[in-house]
């Protein structure tokens, strides 16, 4: 399938472009690690959780925050392509939207896998001790990858919608905010009542609950299924949306 070959070439390109952009390296790798340290050392002392050390409670949350945030940068990379001349060249070479967009998404997943590894390494270094067997680890990584993929496709849609790369950055901002009103950093029952409805029913909460449950060997309830449902549902919206937006954008 030539789309697959093109996607590989373009994912390689996107990863290379990230590596060469100091801003992007900092936002993709350094910032997540810093966030981990900030949460544990600045806020950790003040937050009560039922998992013993705060680092153990918060590490999955920071993983989610970084994943969502990193994935949302797809909005900017897609927007860069759409506003520069390069998309015309790709189109005139019959490289279709499927290859162009999935190239960006694949690069995003690769980038975020690296960031996740870095955050995990730092978390281990500062005392994160999960209790998970290989099956739990696999399930956790699977959910994380699905989450990253989903947000990357949503990011791609946002990038197609935004008129400028700066505007596309707004999506990143939203993704940076979304984990806060969830159980990522503090238990939901410590939040004001009016937030419970949103925090309980937004997609980040089941993802984070599954991750925490799997890694810390706690009951997960139906969280993994909710997480799966949310991700697949959002993907089912994002993929056709991308197709429509791309066609509208390129007339």
């Amino acid at each position: 399938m030539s789309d697959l070959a093109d996607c590989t070439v373009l994912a390689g390109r996107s990863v290379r472009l990230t590596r060469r952009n100091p801003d992007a390296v900092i936002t993709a790798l350094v910032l997540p690690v810093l966030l981990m340290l900030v949460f544990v050392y600045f806020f950790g002392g003040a937050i009560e959780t039922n998992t013993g050390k705060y680092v153990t409670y918060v590490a999955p949350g920071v993983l989610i925050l970084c994943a969502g945030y990193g994935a949302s940068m797809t909005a900017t990379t897609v927007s860069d392509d759409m506003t520069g001349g390069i998309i015309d060249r790709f189109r005139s070479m019959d490289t279709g939207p499927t290859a162009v967009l999935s190239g960006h998404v694949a690069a995003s997943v690769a980038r975020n896998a690296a960031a996740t590894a870095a955050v995990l390494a730092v978390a281990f270094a500062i005392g994160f001790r999960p209790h998970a067997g290989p099956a739990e680890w696999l399930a956790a990584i699977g959910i994380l990858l699905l989450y990253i993929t989903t947000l990357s496709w949503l990011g791609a849609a946002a990038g197609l919608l935004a008129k400028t790369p700066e505007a596309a950055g707004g999506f990143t901002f939203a993704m940076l905010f979304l984990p806060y009103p969830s159980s990522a950093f503090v238990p939901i029952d410590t939040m004001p009542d009016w937030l419970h409805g949103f925090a309980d029913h937004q997609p980040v909460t089941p993802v984070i609950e599954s991750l925490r449950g799997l890694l810390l060997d706690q009951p997960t309830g139906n969280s993994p299924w909710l997480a799966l449902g949310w991700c697949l549902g959002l993907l089912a919206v994002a993929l056709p949306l991308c197709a429509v937006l791309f066609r509208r954008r390129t007339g």
Partner: protein
Amino acid sequence: MHPAAEADWAIETRGLSKAYGSVHVLAGLDLRVRRGSVFALLGPNGAGKTTTVRILATLTRADAGQAVVAGHDVTAARSRVRRAISLTGQYAALDEEQTGEENLRMMARLRGHSRSAARNRATELLERFALTEAGRRRVSTYSGGMRRRLDIAAGLVTDPQVVFLDEPTTGLDPRSRRTMWETIGSLTRAGVTVFLTTQYLEEADRLADHVAVLDGGRVRAEGTPEELKKTVAAQRLDLTMTGRSAYAELAGQLGERALHRAPEELVLGVATDGSAAHVRTLLDELDPTRAQVAHFSLHSATLDDVFLELTHE
């Protein structure tokens, strides 16, 4: 379409129209470009040259009309057209943070070359466009001319049948421009059809087999550069008058016959065939007292004259 006609024309359009809001950019454009020729589309800024190229290269849809490129309809058989053409747009379409070589390799891979074939093709093109040294550097460090050359090279990673070049030499110095002309010439020797737009009339004159002047959404004139020049008189006799009053008097007398007017320099131009007899007759006719004309010069028509003549408001 008739098979013989199909063999002859690399590009054929009928009644192409395109409007952006209330701006009617193209209003029934008819063009024919012979296979293996160089076709130059001229026109003032905003005439719709880029729009035409984008429609022919399948990037923009026309509102009405038909276009057949390399034997395929641009809307009905978009992919086939895309596989037969290459486009180098008016503005660079390169990754600034990849090296020249990486850009070319990427394009070649997207065009279906294997890894090693792509590498060879990139090396070959860098050499052909005098970018071998620069190939290892990021494009962000390139000069405007180098960028332009790389951009055109990127269009040639496969061997297209029709090459679209939107203002290929804008921003190039005279030497690079000449090199580019040679490159374009060498393309047609290999049987490729080149469709280019340009602001430089001299360029069209030097390169093109066929020229069309676009204005007001239609083709105002077309033909070989020679034919077009004939439409404005092959030669012009320019007379420098001795003073303002002499200029005003002769300008009044000539009326429409004056092909060229430059009041500041006191110059008026009239058509001539360039023969001594005709020039002498003209001088006697226009300056019977032999006191009004200070100097004269003969001027061969350029495409600039055609352009200005055809596109004046």
